C-alpha cells in the first residue's frame, strides 16, 4: 500500500526528512507530485480550467445560466408527493438497455470465443468472420442495419433493434476479452484437467473460466463502461434513453449547457460506481498462481 507507507513515513519525522533530503531536486518534485494531496490539487486545477473555459465561452455567447431548472428534471416534490424527473426516467431506460445488452453480449461473446478456440476449422472460420464483420463496421451503421433493414424483416421495434445492435457490436469485443482471458490460463491447467478425465466443457467450467476471470475483469469493466456510453447512439432512432431525453428537453427549453453537463455527470456517476464495484470484485478473484 503506497499510501499507508507514505503516511507512516510522515509520522516518523526524523527518518522521513532525511529520506526527503537525500533525493535530488527532480526526484523530490516527482515524489511530491505522486502524493495524494498533490493529485487532488492537480485534479481540481484541471476541473477549474474546464469549468472556467465553459463559463467564459457561455458568457461570450451571451448565455444565461438557468441551473435552477435542472433539479426538476431529476425529481420533483409536488403536492402529489415524490416524482422522478425525465432525466431519471431516461437513466433507468439507459441502465435497462445497457444491462440487457451487456448480458446478451457476454453470452454471444463467450460462444464466439469458444467457437474460435474450438480448433474446428468451421468454428474458427465462423467466429473470425463474425468478429471482423462486426468489429469493422461503425456502430451507427450497424444500428441502421438493425433498425431499417432487419427491423422490418423480423418485426422488431426500435428498443429491440437497439438492444440487439449493442449486444452484437459489443459481443465481438467481449469475445476477444474471453479469448485473451482463456489463453492467459497456463496450458498445464488444461492438461491436468484432461488427465483426470474431464471433458472440454467440464475443464472450461470448473478449471479454466474461473481462473480467467481475474484476467478478464479489468478489460470487461472497460467494455461495460464503453457499452453504457455507446448506448447513447440509440438516440438517433429515438429510443427514450438518457441522451434522447436530454435532446428533447433542450429542444423544448434551450438549456443546452446545463442539460449536457448534467447528462455527462449522470453517465460519469454510473460508470464510476461500476468501476468501484469491479475493484472489489478484482480483489475477490485475485488468486495467486
Amino acid at each position, binding site marked *: 500500500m503506497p499510501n499507508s507507507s507514505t503516511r507512516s513515513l510522515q509520522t516518523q519525522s526524523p527518518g522521513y526528512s532525511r529520506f526527503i533530503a537525500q533525493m535530488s531536486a527532480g526526484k523530490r518534485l516527482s515524489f511530491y507530485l505522486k502524493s495524494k494531496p498533490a493529485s487532488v490539487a492537480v485534479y481540481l486545477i484541471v476541473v477549474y480550467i474546464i469549468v472556467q473555459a465553459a463559463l467564459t465561452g457561455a458568457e461570450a455567447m451571451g448565455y444565461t445560466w438557468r441551473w435552477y431548472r435542472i433539479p426538476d428534471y431529476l425529481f420533483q416534490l409536488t403536492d402529489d408527493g415524490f416524482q422522478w424527473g425525465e432525466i431519471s426516467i431516461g437513466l433507468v431506460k439507459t441502465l435497462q438497455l445497457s444491462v440487457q445488452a451487456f448480458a446478451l453480449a457476454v453470452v454471444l461473446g463467450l460462444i464466439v470465443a469458444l467457437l474460435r478456440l474450438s480448433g474446428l476449422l468451421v468454428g474458427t472460420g465462423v467466429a473470425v468472420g463474425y468478429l471482423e464483420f462486426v468489429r469493422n463496421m461503425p456502430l451507427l451503421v450497424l444500428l441502421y442495419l438493425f433498425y431499417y433493414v432487419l427491423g422490418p424483416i423480423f418485426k422488431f421495434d426500435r428498443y429491440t433493434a437497439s438492444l440487439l445492435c449493442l449486444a452484437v457490436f459489443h459481443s465481438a469485443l467481449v469475445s476477444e476479452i474471453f479469448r485473451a482471458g482463456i489463453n492467459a490460463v*497456463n496450458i*498445464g*491447467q488444461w*492438461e*491436468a*484437467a*484432461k*488427465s*483426470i*478425465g*474431464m*471433458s472440454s466443457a*467440464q475443464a472450461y467450467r*470448473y*478449471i479454466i473460466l*474461473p*481462473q480467467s476471470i481475474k484476467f478478464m475483469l479489468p478489460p470487461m469493466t472497460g467494455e461495460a463502461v464503453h457499452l453504457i456510453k455507446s448506448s447513447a447512439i440509440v438516440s438517433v432512432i429515438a429510443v427514450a434513453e438518457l441522451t434522447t431525453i436530454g435532446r428533447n428537453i433542450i429542444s423544448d427549453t434551450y438549456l443546452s449547457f446545463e442539460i449536457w453537463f448534467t447528462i455527462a455527470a449522470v453517465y460519469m456517476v454510473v460508470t464510476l460506481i461500476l468501476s468501484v464495484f469491479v475493484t472489489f470484485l478484482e480483489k475477490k478473484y485475485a*488468486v*495467486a*498462481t
Partner: protein
Amino acid sequence: MQEDAAIIEIRNLDKFFGKFQALADVSLSVRSGERVVICGPSGSGKSTLIRCINRLEEHSAGQLTVDGIELDDETKNIRAVRMEVGMVFQQFNLFPHLTVLENLTVGPMRVRKISRRKAEERARKYLERVHIPEQAEKYPAQLSGGQQQRVAIARSLCMEPRIMLFDEPTSALDPEMINEVLDVMVELAESGMTMICVTHEMGFARKVADMMVFMEEGRIIESAPPAEFFSSPKSERCRMFLDQILEH
C-alpha cells in the same frame, strides 16, 4: 483380464511434431503391477511417449491399447482411458483457485459423479497416504513444492486409476524436497500400482523398477531389468548416459 496380460500395449508408435519425428517405431508392453522407469537425454521423446498413453499427445501412427481400450479418435475411449490413468506433471499443475481438498474432489465429483461426502472422505484418505492430511484447507500457493507435488499425486490417486504416469515429478523441486516425493512414490510402487516414471532419479529406479527403458532420438535403445541395465548396459550410448548421470 488375466494376471499376465499387458495393461499397456504400445505397437510401432510414431509421433511427428510438424516434420520433427519425436517417436520412431516405439513398441513397449507393460503388465499390470509392473513398474517401468524411462530415462534418456532431453529431447529423446520420453515425455512424449507417456503423454501419448493418456492422449495428451495424439500419436501419428501405430497402435496404443490401454486396459483393453484402443486409443483412437473416439472421445469416449479417450476419456475412459484418462479415468484409468493418473498423471503427475513436472510443474505439478494443481488448480490454484481451489483448495487442496477441492483439487482432490473436483475430479471424482465431476467426472466419476460420486457424492461430495464420499469424495471428501476419499480425498482425506489419500492426503493421509501422501502424509499431508493437515493441509486440506490451504491453497496450493501456500504449500512448498514438495507438498504441492504430493497433493498432485493424491489428486491423481483420488480418481482411483489402475495406472500412474510420472513425468519428471522431481525435476522442478528443490533438492531437499525430492525425497519426500520419492518416498511417496516408493510406497505407491509397493502397494502394487502399475507405474511408468520418466525420471533421472536412479536411486529410486534401482529400488522400485521392474524394467528400465533407455530412449534416444525417439527410439527405445535399450530395455532391461535394472540389475542388468545398470551393471552391463548393451549399447555404448546408454553406458555413456549412465556414466554422466551417475558420476556424482
